[in-house]
């Protein structure tokens, strides 16, 4: 994952963003933008999913974008169940996505959920 690269929206970290928050995503250092949500950060880094369901191990990312669907949950600073679309990044945040677990039984779906960008 190359979270600093911004393949989506137009502007990258704006040059005028002096207090740009420095965070880590799954241990990798990333410069975010002031006012960015965790989901905004992840999507602009090219990720579409960052969690998997408990039952079927289905990948999940952003869905409603306004805090009602609970699809986009991440762990922030050791606290799980944080809605990525609602949470603003803050300097020093340790953001953990939950990669898709390995299949419980042989023959299950391949568990490659850590795949990030499509590049």
């Amino acid at each position, binding site marked *: 994952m190359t979270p600093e690269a911004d393949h989506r929206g137009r502007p990258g970290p704006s040059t005028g963003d002096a207090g740009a928050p420095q965070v880590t995503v799954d241990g990798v250092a990333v410069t975010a933008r002031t006012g960015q949500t965790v989901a905004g950060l992840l999507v602009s880094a090219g990720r579409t999913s960052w969690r998997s369901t*408990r039952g079927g191990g289905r990948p999940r990312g952003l869905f409603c974008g306004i805090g009602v669907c609970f699809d986009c949950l991440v762990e922030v600073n050791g*606290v*799980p*169940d944080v809605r990525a679309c609602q949470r603003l990044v803050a300097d020093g945040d340790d953001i953990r996505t939950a990669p898709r677990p390995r299949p419980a039984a042989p023959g299950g779906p391949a568990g490659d959920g850590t795949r990030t960008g499509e590049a």
Partner: protein
Amino acid sequence: MAAHPDVVVVGAGVVGAACAEALTAAGLRVTVLDRGAPASGTTAAGEGNVLVSDKEPGPELVLAQHSLRRWRVLLPALREELGPELAEVEWDAKGGLVVATTAAGAGSLTAFAAAQRQAGVRAEQLAPDRVGELEPLLTPGITAAVHYPEDAQLHPVLAATTLLAAVRARGGAVRAGVAALGLRRAAGGAVSAVVTSAGDLPTAAVVNACGPWAGAFATAAGAPITVLPRRGVVLVTGPLPPGTVRHKVYDADYVGAVASGDADLQTSAVVESTRAGTVLVGSSRQRVGFDDTIRVAVLRELARKAVALFPVLADVPVQRAYGGFRPYAPDHLPVIGPDPRVAGLWHVTGHEGAGIGLAAATGQLLAELLTGAEPHVDPTPFRVDRPAVLTGAEVRA
């Protein structure tokens, strides 16, 4: 037009469903009525514990012990009859763990368990430092602990709908959205029909299984009984990793709260996980009539006690809170038997916070009494004709 039912059961909660199941098993033609959706009343609020651990020696414990045995026989039989899907009730013989966190609590818990052992309950005293083997995430500040391996859990709405499916499979009827409004009586005074919102339904026997609303129906039927609502609220957390909470765990003051008739709010943490991964934190007990407001003060007490037992729960999101009204008689015993005033009218209610667990034996007992068979438990303590149920019922109902 089908022939008239032998028995009309009013109320399709778990108690009415269990009565109807037992009556159809005895070969009777049964119609079950509910003014709402079946299993949507108190039963939908129940946590589904099938417990012996919370009961002191006495008639209710005897009924609970019979009911445990009865569920264990009934559920496999229903699986044979209905198939595994329809008979799925998420039965889980997980066992209960009762803990004390003070020196005084340790003494009374130990004495309570000793008395239960005398009454045939399996109550295994654990050394406080061994509790972690059963519940690794429990607070270390435990002063006494008793393990009750017989305690089990089931899904109350699945249980009630499975019982009703058996009723249907045996030719009985379940009618949703039909309210019972009163009775018609024959010349001799015996029941001849139920008056319903969908017209008269002729029958010679009517079972009042209206849960907390049993008093109202009894009054409408001309035979008032005292059954009152006791509010209970449960918190549900978001899904947690398996193994966070393994048994039904509660602090020993729960036993005091169950037995008390105090109107004031009582809470004690009863913490347990469900098959869906959520943790239920129950429950409060309060006499507020039928006021269904969910109070933050009540939720806070539940949360406080749950976090005291399982500190790891502090960071867990609360997903939901809901409540119901436990039906109780002033002497806190179920009401099961014929009405002494109206021939053909039977009351089966007042199971308070234990109706899910007690339903299996209750249905069986009602069917035995109604068909004249030998009862498998002594029905005397539960009879309608007792002062707590009849005295002042006219005024209070």
